[in-house]
């Protein structure tokens, strides 16, 4: 059998091209899968926290725990409020008793008496899931139990989670924890059952001072999306590259 040089080169080229084709190219998508892959959600949920308006009442934490059946007296919470007291010598005292569930009623910070004269600045910072664009917690899930919805919210499939805890470790913001009743990973869902019905999240609705606001980042007429687009806002731990979608007004360098 004789093979010409031309034939050999041709066959080699075709052969290597065929070998380079990924198996995915031959995969048939069901109509639903194809639709889901093409369809874009009209929403992208985001959040705006104005720390200058927060008074540390903790009604958001209380409402969140009750709305989402997070065991009330366990040391776990989907959202919490941190208190920062920065003294004249630059020392930062930070605390969040019970996640701020019962508000901040004591002048003592972490059992320390603080002289009011020595306080340079003090403020409250509400924290919740950042619903990142590139969520580290989703990437590490070994079973596909946590995912990003088409409208940008990161959720957990309680029937599929095996409780390995990788996501709890992966989240740079520490918003995930283990649910003692369902025995699965748990986190803030932006009250998905509320926002999908056109309501605001429980924490937003129960904040008297407007420190928390839900917004649709794809709707450029949304008043809070406008604030994010036109004013100076910051995100937490930008350097992790997770692209958080909770934006803050009035952050300080002490806030991590």
């Amino acid at each position: 059998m004789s093979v010409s040089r031309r034939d050999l080169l041709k066959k080699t080229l075709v052969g290597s091209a065929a070998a380079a084709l990924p198996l995915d190219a031959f995969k048939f998508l069901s109509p639903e899968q194809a639709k889901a892959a093409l369809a874009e959600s009209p929403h992208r949920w985001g959040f705006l926290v104005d720390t200058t308006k927060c008074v540390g009442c903790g009604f958001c934490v209380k409402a969140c725990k009750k709305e989402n059946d997070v065991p009330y007296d366990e040391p776990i919470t989907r959202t919490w409020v941190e208190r920062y007291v920065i003294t004249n010598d630059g020392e930062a005292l930070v605390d969040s008793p019970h996640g701020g569930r019962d508000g901040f009623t004591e002048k003592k910070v972490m059992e320390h008496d603080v002289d009011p004269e020595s306080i340079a600045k003090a403020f409250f910072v509400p924290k919740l899931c950042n619903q990142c664009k590139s969520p580290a917690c989703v990437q590490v899930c070994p079973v596909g139990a946590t995912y990003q919805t088409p409208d940008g919210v990161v959720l957990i499939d309680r029937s599929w989670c095996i409780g390995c805890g990788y996501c709890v470790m992966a989240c740079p913001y520490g918003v995930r924890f283990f649910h003692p009743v369902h025995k699965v990973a748990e986190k803030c869902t932006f009250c998905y059952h509320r926002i999908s019905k056109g309501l605001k999240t429980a924490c937003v609705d129960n904040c008297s001072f407007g420190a928390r606001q839900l917004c649709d980042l794809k709707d450029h007429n949304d008043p809070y999306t406008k604030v994010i687009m036109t004013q100076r806002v910051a995100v937490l731990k930008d350097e992790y590259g997770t692209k958080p979608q909770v934006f803050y007004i009035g952050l300080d360098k002490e806030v991590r």
Partner: protein
Amino acid sequence: MKTHVLRPLILAIVLVSCHLLFRHFYVPDDFGVNGKNFTFGFYRAGSIDDWKAIPVKYKGKELCAECHEEQYESNMASKHSIIQCENCHGPAMDHAETEEPLTIDKSRGLCLRCHAALPYPGSQRSELPAIDPEEHNVGMECAECHNPHKPSLEDM
């Protein structure tokens, strides 16, 4: 083919088929790449509906106003109009249908969430009307003197 090749081969085929069979019945049909890509969108599509199906507990002030108009009006005329009824009365849940009484939190601690004086420059907290809880009528409930719906003593 020799038996020492055939036997492990059959065993391997049986094991793989068992695995595939189990997987076929165990993994839901809607499990797969449902989102934009495998990294962030590999999940069971029905899970989204599970989350949507959760009932709403905090119904909001407007629902309260439908029956409790008088209290709503008096509250909306005061500084406490910014507070949700459910912050003190508890989540409404299906109160509108069952009319099951709600447990009202009248405790001193509830009021102190905002009105315990904290000298915090740069925070809106220091701008709220505030008292020192260790000096101001210790041991009394705030509601004994102040009407929580319109708390200013001048308005009473």
